[in-house]
């Protein structure tokens, strides 16, 4: 299998905080990778380094054969990477439709009509085509997050990153978002997911990575990691998370 994301010995410093301490990781095309770990362990930072929302202090990140080092290719690579945020980050001044159309028009240079058709199909796919003309504040959290996923997909990304996509949601809305993500995983999308949704990890992930203090402590397929973790730290963490 060819690896689509290649992370080599990445370090990240925020002032005095050493957030990532030498992370190396290969992600295969079509793989669904779930990253778990306690807060402050560097999971989100790692994710944000992949599409360069954070610059890594040292090390290499190669996405789709392109090394992320100059401003020109950052925008090019970002078009291939969709990102879904914990806080949705829908454009508050635009309707749902315009949220999906904006980047298609100015980045992908699609015609308005074409962009709208793509947007409407994606809204059907995430189950809320009837919300095309409302503004984000009129939607529930779960609906907003589904729009955010559709917005990322409208760019036809080859990779999707999810940064705690369900952490800001009410329990009853988590499922509707996870269902969309599961469907996406079944289609063979390459996905890197920071999440504590163990049900999703079990159903979709090929590998789970456990991070602690800026390092990858352990990686294994979900059933192996859940049943027989190697490290004490992993055991302790999983016992707390799986209790829920």
């Amino acid at each position: 299998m060819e690896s689509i994301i290649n992370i080599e010995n990445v370090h990240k410093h925020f002032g005095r905080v050493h957030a990532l301490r030498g992370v190396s990781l290969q992600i295969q095309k079509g793989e669904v990778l779930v990253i778990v770990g306690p807060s402050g362990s560097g999971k989100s930072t790692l994710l944000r380094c992949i599409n360069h929302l954070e610059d890594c202090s040292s090390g290499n990140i190669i996405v789709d054969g392109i090394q992320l080092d100059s401003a020109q290719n950052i925008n090019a690579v970002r078009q291939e990477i969709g990102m879904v945020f914990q806080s949705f980050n829908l454009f508050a001044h635009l309707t749902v439709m315009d949220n999906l159309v904006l980047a298609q028009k100015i980045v992908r240079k699609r015609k308005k009509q074409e962009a709208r058709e793509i947007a409407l199909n994606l809204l059907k796919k995430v189950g809320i085509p009837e919300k095309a003309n409302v503004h984000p504040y009129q939607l529930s959290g779960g609906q907003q997050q589904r729009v955010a996923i559709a917005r990322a997909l409208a760019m036809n990304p080859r990779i999707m990153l999810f940064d705690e996509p369900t952490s800001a949601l009410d329990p009853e809305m988590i499922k509707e978002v996870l269902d969309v993500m599961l469907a996406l995983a079944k289609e063979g999308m390459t996905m890197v997911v920071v999440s504590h949704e163990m049900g999703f990890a079990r159903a979709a992930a090929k590998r789970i990575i456990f991070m602690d203090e800026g390092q990858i402590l352990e990686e294994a397929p979900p059933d192996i990691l859940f049943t027989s973790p190697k490290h004490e730290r992993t055991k302790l963490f999983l016992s707390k998370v799986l209790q829920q």
Partner: protein
Amino acid sequence: MFTRREPKIDEQELTHIPGAEPQSRMDVWWWLVALVVGVIIILSVTMPDPYWNIIKFVRDGLKITIFLTVVSFVFVLLVGMLGGLGRISKNRIINLIATLYVELVRGVPLLVQLIWWYYAFPVIIQQIGKWTHISALAEYQANAIFVAIVGLVFCYGAYMSEIYRAGIQSVPKGQMEAARSLGMSYFQAMRHVVLPQAIRVILPPVGNEFISLLKDSSLVSVVAVADLTRRGREFMATHFNPIEVWTMVALLYLVLTLFSARIVNWIERRTKFER
């Protein structure tokens, strides 16, 4: 540009404070305008000498005041946007220049700045012309209106920069991140995502700046611009009737500011949006 939306719930119903409804504010404003305009009309009709004569005399000045304010304000909006972007720039040199500009300008009274632009600036240009032997510069003469616009824009641009900065910073960081993660460049994200939201936030202070600028434009009367205030002084110099002249000038400024306030309010209501 922005579409108007009706609120889903009846806000008036929820926040009903007797006597404080938007409707009543509207009425108060209409009464005020009617009052001011009425006073002007009654004075001009009942006592055309001197009131109607004053209005006829200062009419050019009124036009210049409006012209100065509107033209300056367009440039203030542009300079303010550049200054605001400079103030949040991560490029140290750009940031330093923007910060210096804002801090220096805000520390000097507008009147002093206007006098500097009118009396000192042309001399500097002439000196440069002499040193470089460029006769066009050496013979430079300040055009009063041009200098007044430069002075007003330079000063108000600094204040406007801070308003823009605050507005841009009020837009959650995630908006920029989401835009960038879709492959937009910094400037595309600014233009299509951050600034449209920032502008709605800053509309009230921007409106205030417009009204302040309208009033402060009276300071240009000291640098040989025949604006409303200066025309009033000229009339007084020949007719020696300070009460009538300055009451009429004050009423005319009042009409301008009341109308501006209403226009600002109207724009605010039309561009309201919720997060």
